[in-house]
């Protein structure tokens, strides 16, 4: 179901997980709107519901109740295959542990989402993948297998993969959580650059320094938004 409006709209969403004899509430009646072009950081302690919120935005999890509208689609109305197709065209996902396919080279990993979505003509895919890798600074690693790259290089390649289909929305779950501070800074710089192009970015992070580059910081505690303040741009 395609609708128009803000890039992300979360209305009174509850997400519970069964655990033992009862349920754990991960997201508790949360409402949120993120406009197109925003760069938002979602922060909070462990177990505050950050990753669950990101998974709800990516269609990885379905809400127990409430509405999640992202990139013009009501995710509740899409099947699993529909969600996969929607993600391929509208969302770039970046994970903490890079998650590149081990048997494909770096450039092939970047081309794979193009293959799935079919948005980019086949003959342009390799060049585009190479360009994206150049852009994130790992163009010279294109022909290598992921296992031969450092953590920072793999995460840059994962960002290039997330950009493969030129999605309007980037969702990143602890993208710097597995990197040293220097590399983490460089990766965040890449996100900042991408935001300047008008892309909406939501990053779940523990990084204290992120406030300096994001437009808004949402603090979660016990599945609820504690504060949703505008960040101070450096």
């Amino acid at each position: 179901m395609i609708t128009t409006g803000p890039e992300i709209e979360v209305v009174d969403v509850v997400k519970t997980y069964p655990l033992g004899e009862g349920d754990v509430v991960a997201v508790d009646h949360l409402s949120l709107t993120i406009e197109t072009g925003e760069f938002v950081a979602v922060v909070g302690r462990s177990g505050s519901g950050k990753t669950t919120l990101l998974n709800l935005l990516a269609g990885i999890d379905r809400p127990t109740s409430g509405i999640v509208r992202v990139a013009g689609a009501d995710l509740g109305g899409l099947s699993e295959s529909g969600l996969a197709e929607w993600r391929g065209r509208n969302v770039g996902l970046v994970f903490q542990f890079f998650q590149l396919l081990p048997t494909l080279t770096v450039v092939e990993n970047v081309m794979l989402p193009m293959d799935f979505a079919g948005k980019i003509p086949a003959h342009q895919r390799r060049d585009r993948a190479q360009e994206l890798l150049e852009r994130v600074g790992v163009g010279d690693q294109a022909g290598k297998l992921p296992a031969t790259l450092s953590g920072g290089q793999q995460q840059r390649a994962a960002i290039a993969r997330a950009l493969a289909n030129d999605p309007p929305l980037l969702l990143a779950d602890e993208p710097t959580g597995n990197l040293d501070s220097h590399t983490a800074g460089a990766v965040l710089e890449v996100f900042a650059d991408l935001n300047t192009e008008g892309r909406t970015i939501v990053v779940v992070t523990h990084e204290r320094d992120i406030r300096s580059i994001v437009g808004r910081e949402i603090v979660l505690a016990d599945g609820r938004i504690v504060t949703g303040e505008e960040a101070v741009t450096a």
Partner: protein
Amino acid sequence: MSGLMAVKLRRDLRASWSRFVLMVIAIAVSLTVFGGILSAWASVGRETTGAYMSTGPASATIVLQKGLPPERMAALAAAARERGGVLEATGRGQFTGQIVGKTIPLQVFLAAPQDPMRMARFDVRQPSAGWPPAAGDVLIRRDSLPLLGVTVGDTVTVTAPGSEPVRLRVAGAVYDPSLAPSRQEQKGFGYLSTASLATPLLDQLKIQVAEPGQDVPTPNRDTVVAMAGDIARWLQDEQRVAVREIQAPRPYAHPHQWQSDALMGSLLAGAALALLLSSILVATMLNTLFTQQIPQIGIMKAIGARSGRIARLYLVMTLVVAAVATLLALLPAVLLGRDRLESSLQNLGIEATSLAAPWWTYALILLAGLALPPLISLIPLVKASRTTVRAAIDHHGGASNPSGVVARLSRLRGLDRGLLMALRNTIRRPTRFLLSVGLLACAAMVFVSGMSLGTSVQAVEEERAARRYWDVSVRLAEPAAMREVTDLVRRVPGVARVEGWNSAEAGVAARGQIPVTRTYPDQGHGRVMLDAVPAGDAMFTPPPMAEGRWLEPGETGAIVLNQNLRDTTVPDVTAGDTVTLYAGGTSSSWRVVGIAGEREGDIFTTAEGFAQAMGQPVQVDQLRLATTDTDERTRTAVADAVDAALSGAGFTVAAANSVSRNQAISEGHLGPVIVILLGIALPLGVIGAIGLASTMSANVLDRTREFGVMHAIGARPKTVRRIVVAEGVFLALASCLVAVLPVLALTAVLGASFGNLFMSAALPFRVSLPAVGIWVALVIVGSILATDAAATRASRITVREALTYL
């Protein structure tokens, strides 16, 4: 499939090449065996039927009570040919004689020189001459020559019942694929023109019957029996020729067709089971691979792959395995098929016209090889391709939510913590657990059932041996007065007791009807015998009765029918009924006093009853002797001494042998069946072991992170290793428990089918306890060995390796 997915497929195959090689080997080996046996089975049927039908076998043989001169028989045959539905008719004769100086009987087929040999024919191969042989010449079936110890050109003296011995020159060798092999029958076959006999008589009217409007023999035995009955009645009523019986064997079926079908069918079933098990094994291994790839599936889903694309990737992977295995198996299957075909036809005494298998066997091999593995892998394949991103994120190996069983196992008290962990781990993945257990249980089922069949056969043999109360058997060429013969034999040193038997070919029918039997031209297959059992101080003990009672001493006009004979010949007859019995050239009415639940024998009567029916004094043609010592040396010495004593007194001894020889012949017939079953069971066991190794390897891969964590919190490699090995052993033991009921069921089914095929009754139900013990030991040792590699790997997983595992 897109180029990148093809690249991924290629590299995934390369990354796990050893497992794919194992899968290909498992499928290729079982497909080779299945394809080979399938093509041999299909070709044996074609060749056997083709060779048999090339002889133009008679649809039925109407056996007369007394032989007629060839001219009279030719006139009757000509008249029979005029009847609608009769394609061909001819008069023939037959007798069982013996070459003087040889112990093997010679069955002689007799035809008039002018017989056109349009039916029941044979090829004269050496020299290449046709029918008829010159007067004084005999043709011998080629495979009878070595058995009889004669060669073409030899001159032999042949004894015939009721006539003087005849000197004949072996003029040629004959190829006759309508008969069972001489070696198996322990009988020679000869072909003689009536011109070689002084007063030839023909007592068989052979006919070929067709359906109305058809010009080929009918495959419908009912039509044959009806037509033969009509002609028999015409002979009796209008020609005043008494008919003894109608012999109508199964149309279009070689006498040993059933044996070949049974053996090939068993092999084929075993090969199909091996193929099924190896497909299950491949499905298990692929399931492992899919499980290992769940994180990658999650990533692909996260970046836009739909379930269909993932399914196509893994379907192609499965098809690649199936296709490579099928290609590898095709040529060996063809070669194996040809080898089996040649060997089977050699056993049947048939020359192949072509070794090529029918086209549909190739199609079936391709279909089985290409379709079975993907079909069996379909459920894990679809399940893997439908994995959601959430499920992939949550995937850490074992089940995310412990099942009730696992939870209950956690509460077991008194078990070592490590063993408890292993026990829980064994059933953490129920599908994989069931697949592995099923695989091993199938192998256990075939192994134990196969061995149990051997035990059942052995039990029958022991039962027979227990009943075989005699040490030496003697067969006379012609019946002789009982008292005279037994008194003579009792005087031979080493003889403790003597018992005389007599037997005659017979036919049984409901009262007033002509007996119809399934007897083949060799007069052996399908033949019914009337046995005169000894009385008085005889060693013989009556068999158990299914109905009615056993014969009273000296009782006449009474018979006991074997249960199998009753069921197949006169099914409506019960104890107390009266039947018509044709024996010794006469027909008479007999009262059925009982039905014997016995494996051997057809019709029993007393020696007095037999004598009365034959119109002669009490005679014997067989002797059963108990010797003073039962060692083989004594038995052989007594057999030789009795032979000499009887021959010296003017009796012609056809054979005098120790019972050990008969036992050897019987075991020789059953041995191959047991070897075949074990031959099927052992590879299945190997497939099961490979399956267990694969499962344990998968379990370890699945839980790489878990083992890393265990190492991180201080678990020693030895502890981890012990847990993994214990899991394998638990799985193996579970398979043994699961196999119990299928083993009992398959043992019963095999016992019933093989027993009915080979011994006319279900085998006694026996479960081989040594086989159970061997299998349990094998499966435990096998599980330890099969788990060893996985356990070693688990014990060596580093924390770092575990954390980066994808």
